[in-house]
């Protein structure tokens, strides 16, 4: 076990050392910022937004355009992360029940499966982010067109694990329980749901990753806050991805996203281990 940690740290240290070496060799902070630049960008983004340069020089600045623009807009890393997390959570809270319900229905009844599956395949094939502009026409420039793609992505992702959990895993338990006379609520609550739970919860972790991806994508395209906005540094939506950004800011943003994604996945893992303790 200790060998694992040694190798883990060796690898991480090698990565950082190699990066530092290459960055100092190349010495192009606009392409490969040094570790110090990244740390300064982090400090500036975590700081309390923009303090107007009142007379004296502002010290400690990794002064790139993107950091300054973000500071002027009062964008901070923690606030962006909070907004994105809230969007992801909203997507999960609304999208998961929809997807799980559809998966239960399709897994439970062959008739429903026959009718709904073709429609589901159509829905699934449409990339959520392609829907953004269309939703915007209907609902205006608001929060809705950022949230709807996330909800859509989560729901579509949650269907399949639930469906297979109900149809393939729970199937034999259902037959056994039915032959013992169980039916209705008892069958659903005591047999079907527990039996399908591991598959459903496995899908939850996958939905989580999709939700983050969609949220960041939607924010990169059109949002005035959140991690996606921080990464591209704002701007009009159609020209957003045309501006060169500061790699130090992007690296800080990406690391923050990786940590947030990892933390939420860890919570989901613990949560599902709790709920499916019977399975082991």
């Amino acid at each position, binding site marked *: 076990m200790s060998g694992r940690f040694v190798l883990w740290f060796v690898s991480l240290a090698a990565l950082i050392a190699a990066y530092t070496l290459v960055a100092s060799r190349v010495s192009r902070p606009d392409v490969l910022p040094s570790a110090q630049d990244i740390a300064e960008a982090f400090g500036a983004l975590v700081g309390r937004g923009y303090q107007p340069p009142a007379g004296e020089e502002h010290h400690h600045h990794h002064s790139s355009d993107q950091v300054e623009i973000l500071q002027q807009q009062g964008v901070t890393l923690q606030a962006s992360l909070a907004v994105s997390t809230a969007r992801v959570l909203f997507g999960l809270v609304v999208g998961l029940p929809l997807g799980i319900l559809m998966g239960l229905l399709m897994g439970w009844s062959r008739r429903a499966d026959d*009718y709904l599956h073709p429609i589901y395949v159509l829905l699934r094939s449409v990339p959520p982010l392609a829907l953004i502009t269309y939703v915007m026409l209907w609902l205006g420039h608001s929060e809705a067109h950022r949230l709807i793609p996330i909800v859509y992505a989560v729901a579509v992702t949650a269907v399949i694990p639930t469906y297979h959990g109900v149809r393939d895993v729970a199937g034999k338990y259902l037959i056994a329980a039915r032959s013992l006379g169980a039916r209705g609520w008892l069958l659903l609550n005591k047999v079907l749901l527990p039996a399908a739970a591991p598959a459903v919860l496995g899908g939850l972790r996958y939905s989580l990753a999709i939700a983050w991806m969609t949220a960041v994508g939607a924010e990169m395209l059109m949002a005035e806050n959140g991690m996606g906005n921080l990464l591209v540094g704002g701007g009009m939506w159609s020209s957003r991805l045309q501006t060169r950004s500061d790699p130090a800011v992007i690296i800080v943003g990406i690391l923050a996203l990786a940590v947030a994604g990892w933390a939420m996945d860890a919570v989901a893992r613990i949560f599902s281990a709790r709920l499916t303790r019977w399975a082991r």
Partner: protein
Amino acid sequence: MQKVKARRAVVALLAVAVLYGIAAEIGRGRLPDRIWLGAHYVENVQLLPTWRSLAEEGAFLVESEILVSSIAVSTRRVLIGLVLGSAVGILLGLLTGWATRVEYLADPWVTFFRFTPALALLPLYVVWFGYGETSKVLLIATNVAAITLLGAHQGVRGVPRVYLDAAASLGAGGWLRFRKIVLPTAFPSIFASVRIAVGLAWVTIVVAELIDARMPSLGYLLALAGAYPRVPTMLIGIATVGALVLVFDMLALLLHARVTRWMRRTA
């Protein structure tokens, strides 16, 4: 059985198409056609275009060769990204699954790529590789590699110990065990991850094509249709991407059936 299934599928899809047609006819003239777009009003918007105007727009897009060339360009990017990404991802996944030391060494990197939303890498790739093809293809490849790596890794890890021990006790060496036991057993898991990656590759391209946005490409076609806005084009663009995802998925399934002909079919 199969007949009933097919009939029901047709009924369901027809029902959706007819319902949409009815909604569009009812909506014509009733839905607002002047829409506030954040900064200005746009006129003549058909929120729910009728089947007829969709058909006219589709004919225009096909005749002007906009649609065909866009499909060709985007498909090429997705394909290159898929091949590159799954080659790297599957190889690494097999390696990390098979050799524990490699797994520990690769773990921090793999964890990082697993939890980074792939689209977040786009601005960084633009800085590193410029606006051209490289950024787009590499973004797809990264995304695909992260998913297939996990699929291959879990596939190798899921190989029952007993198989390997039995083969070893019969004198099979490392390479033989890998080729005859690990690869076939891990295949379903690898394949499932490739199928997921196909869908995500198309999600990625729609956004990635907004950098250095130019025709022909499906991502930019969608963005342009959204900017005007021209709803029939938008809907046809969305449907085209959806259809391509479907086609890719079907091709993957076909390939799967071919490769696993030796297995007994259950479903």
